[in-house]
């Protein structure tokens, strides 16, 4: 019994100890080694520290979520009260829309071809290879097109935004903006947000289109499946609703990328390391958020779909 308690105590206290040591390390800028490890304490004190540690984690989590929500509210309030100027909007639209097109198109093409390669043999076993058109195009417009376009946008634009705003924060340029009576949210964040929100649907359409082209090219030209049946099946199963549902989802992805990336840039820690971390965090958090949103929006869209068309669709 005692042994169990002892083991439990160590498990509970170790995070607290390591946290304190980490703090000490950062304070001194170097490791303290193991020489001055603290002596063991009583169970009550250990439990107290566990509670304090978890409490701190919980409070920090609530604070950062609240902070992000407030940040988003400020973006929305500025967006609806005053439109940004043309000269701040256009460069952002160019960066997000025009500059991202090639990479999104390339990814779309390849994912279309990869889908063809991966599903061809399985469908052939069943003698259903002409149904590939439905499978490839449905996966593309509903799922892969929007998610891939958003992922590329998060990687290409999101991390760049975080790094740019982070550098501006570190070099006091954001303070300079505020000191000159320009609101940094209105001047820096709203144009980026609008660019992501309005242009991600076009990027999604581009990814969808190139994916369809890529899938068609590989299936028909290389694997030699009948062209007429390929298109016929696609037409039968993939409808406007599927295309629109993908585009609808992409709007949320675009908004999430801009909000998370700008928030990360604005709250960048000092120095080159801070900027690097902000850029990485912008991508990682955006990507995770894209997937979470994708799941919930998928569920929502499906429930809407089956409410209106209860009979559903079947590929086979």
């Amino acid at each position, binding site marked *: 019994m005692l042994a169990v308690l002892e083991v439990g105590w160590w498990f509970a206290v170790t995070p607290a100890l390591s946290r304190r040591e980490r703090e*000490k390390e950062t*304070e*001194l800028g170097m490791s*303290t080694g193991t020489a*001055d490890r603290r002596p063991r304490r009583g169970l009550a004190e250990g439990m107290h520290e566990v509670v304090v540690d978890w409490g701190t984690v919980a409070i920090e989590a609530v604070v950062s979520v609240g902070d992000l929500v407030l940040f988003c509210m*400020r973006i929305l309030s500025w967006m609806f009260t005053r439109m940004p100027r043309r000269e701040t909007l256009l460069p952002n639209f160019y960066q997000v829309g025009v500059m991202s097109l090639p990479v999104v198109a390339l990814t779309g093409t390849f994912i279309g071809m990869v889908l063809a390669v991966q599903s061809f043999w399985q469908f052939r076993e069943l003698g259903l290879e002409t149904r590939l058109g439905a499978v490839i195009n449905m996966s593309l417009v509903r799922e892969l097109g929007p998610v891939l376009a958003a992922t590329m946008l998060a990687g290409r634009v999101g991390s760049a935004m975080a790094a740019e705003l982070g550098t*501006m924060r570190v*070099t*006091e*340029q954001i*303070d*300079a*903006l*505020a*000191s*000159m*009576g*320009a*609101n940094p949210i209105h001047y820096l964040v709203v144009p980026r947000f609008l660019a992501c929100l309005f242009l991600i649907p076009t990027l999604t359409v581009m990814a969808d289109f190139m994916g369809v082209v890529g899938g068609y090219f590989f299936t028909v030209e290389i694997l030699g499946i009948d062209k007429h049946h390929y298109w016929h099946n696609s037409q039968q199963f993939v409808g406007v609703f599927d295309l629109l549902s993908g585009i609808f989802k992409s709007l949320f992805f675009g908004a999430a990328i801009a909000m998370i990336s700008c928030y990360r840039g604005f709250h960048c820690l000092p120095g080159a390391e801070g900027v690097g971390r902000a850029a990485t965090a912008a991508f990682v958090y955006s990507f995770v958020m894209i997937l979470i949103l994708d799941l919930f929006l998928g569920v929502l869209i499906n429930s809407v779909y089956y409410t209106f068309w209860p009979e559903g669709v079947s590929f086979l």
Partner: protein
Amino acid sequence: MTVSPTSSNRSLVDVHNLHVSFDTQDVLRDVTLRVRRGETVAIIGESGCGKTVLLKSIIGLIRPTSGSVHFDGNDLASLNDRELTQQRARFGYVFQNAALFDSLTVGQNVAFPLRQHRGYSPARVRDLVLTRLAMVGLPDSVVSQKPAELSGGMRKRVGLARALIMNPELILYDEPTTGLDPIMSDVINELMLRTKSENENDVTSIIVTHDMRTAHKVADRIIMVFPLSRLEPDEPQLIFDGAPEKLDHCADRRVSQFINGEAGERLTELQQASSARGL
């Protein structure tokens, strides 16, 4: 910090019991400070003592943990985004590293406050920008250059031109001469003096510096801030407040040590402090 009742009525900046802390670290404690209209105040003190934090609190870039900052009777903390934006058009802030927007040209940088607040025609904006740049001794050719192409001294002067273009009532200088050669430092000092004389002493300036030459040459009044970590809990953080002439006769050893640039026992203190932390 005894201020006569008449002068308090005319104070442009009124910092009252200001307390600023970041996470668990206190930077400013119970700072009370009044700056009258037309006054030029130099804030001196060693690095990390909270001078810049004080300056940024005055313009509302840092919110006070407790206490208040009033600018011309308005409590900055109680203003919303829009009201704060309006008030800030009355400030000019010269940043330590100029903080020029590197995506814009020098001309766009200097014109930025004008475009933000005034609906002037492009030709008029261009004229004003060129005049301002000429005043700080920069040729017309820099207008189309990017800040990265300029030297440190030029960047600082562009920063100064940008801060002055709106004819602000209050100019805040954050270490305007740090990192410049002695001649360029004096050029900046001259520019600060000229700004004051050209505006018939109507402009108020607060200069954060550790350059004693600047403080003596430009300021009417000098305030010294001391780092909280080396103060006893009941000691005031502003250890000197008075005319520059009085600074040399100040009895406080901490002040004389700073103005004469003597390390004294500091190195030993620093070593003791680090060994006390278990190094």
